[in-house]
């Protein structure tokens, strides 16, 4: 009999294959319904501007976030998106609160529940927002609220950093200092932070291995 994990991969792959079909069906249906197929050159020109960086980031993200989110969580998060700014912090926070370890079966369950809940709530918020767009647009575009929306990531990662860095400060020190110096020297990198997540992860892993071998963690 197949294990829970094996079954997760089976159903996860089915959902992923369906999701790929659904995603592709959107532009196909637009083209068919409006009889408006774009020229290949137009699509290639557009892709040339985004594909080199976003294809690279997209592929690297799987190898960086996959182990963190677990199997079920990954099959869901890589369909529903917004991984860095929502799904990964949600999973991380939920596993921390439930006191389960990432990579364990309990961690897999908690991570999946967190990502699924987060996806549902996001979908509901966006749907409600779209329904009440005429009412909400002026409110959400109010300059008074702009600083709040500009600072979602610092607000989110400040709290997470305290929990994780305080518990693992020996490992965290080197990648954190490296990243601060890097961004101070090359501020324009802030637009491609996605690429730097695996760089930070590699430095952390290297540091953890070194400290582990020396028996310091």
């Amino acid at each position: 009999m197949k294990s829970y994990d094996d079954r997760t991969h089976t159903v996860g792959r089915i959902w992923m294959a369906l999701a790929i079909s659904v995603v592709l069906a959107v532009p196909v249906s637009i083209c068919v319904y409006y009889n408006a197929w774009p020229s290949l050159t137009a699509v290639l020109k557009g892709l040339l501007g985004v594909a080199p960086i976003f294809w690279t980031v997209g592929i690297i993200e799987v190898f960086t976030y996959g182990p963190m989110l677990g199997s079920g969580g990954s099959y869901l998060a890589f369909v529903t998106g917004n991984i860095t700014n929502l799904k990964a912090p949600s999973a991380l926070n939920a596993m921390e609160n439930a006191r389960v370890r990432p990579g364990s079966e309990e961690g897999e369950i908690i991570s999946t529940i967190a990502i699924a809940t987060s996806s549902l709530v996001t979908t509901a918020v966006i749907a409600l927002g779209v329904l009440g767009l005429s009412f909400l647009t002026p409110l959400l575009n109010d300059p008074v609220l702009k600083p709040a929306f500009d600072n979602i990531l610092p607000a989110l990662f400040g709290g997470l950093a305290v929990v994780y860095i305080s518990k693992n400060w020996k490992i965290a020190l080197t990648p954190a200092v490296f990243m601060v110096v890097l961004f101070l020297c090359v501020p324009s990198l802030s637009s491609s932070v996605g690429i730097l997540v695996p760089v930070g992860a590699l430095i952390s892993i290297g540091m953890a291995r070194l400290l582990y071998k020396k028996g310091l963690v």
Partner: protein
Amino acid sequence: MQFDPNSLFLFCVAGAVILFVIAQSVFFLVRAYRRGCAIGMDKAVLRRTVLSTAVFTVAPAVSILLGVITLAKFLGIPLPWVRLSIIGAITYELPAATTTAQALGVSLSETITDPRVYSAIAWVMTLGIMPGMFVVLFALKKMQHGILKLKTKDSKWGDLFLTSLFLGMISAFLGMVFSDIRSGLPGFIPIFVLLFSALLMGICGFLIRRCGWKWLETYALTVSMLGSLVFAVIITPLIG
């Protein structure tokens, strides 16, 4: 046929995609919950996970809604709604739309009325973000088995390996907060917000451990995030 980026047809397409996302989320939620119960996990913990994640998600979800509103100005509502509900993120969708429009010599200052331009943007938005899905489809199982092997071989190192991945992500975002400080005092606002969020989390930790406010554990990250967002609203006019 007259093209309207807010047509009923496009809303129906968006609705179908949203239903798919809801179905997949509900499927995985119920499956994980049942498995948790089956292996003897505390139902209260599972329910608390749902509740705390739901509360925590609202503020970031509103910022995603802002992305929909931003893109809706020139793409109408349905396409941004779909793109930001399935795989997408505003950091990708906006450059994808802008690059394609520029390549076609179209301005994004007003709503798109040419269906060919619209479909080209839809294709670029779609194809530009799909490789990750294929990697998950074909490589995730092998990768997760590799992690499992690592944990079986050396449990402590396996845990450290996963913790290091989290720390790598947190470090990158910590560093990013410092990227604007050359622009003067306003560039320090993200750092102040981050520090305030950290301070609030520290206070929550103190209240949980020293005062026995166990209930706060579930909402500590939400409290630190929302509190620091209010802080951002207050300090920005004073500094900027």
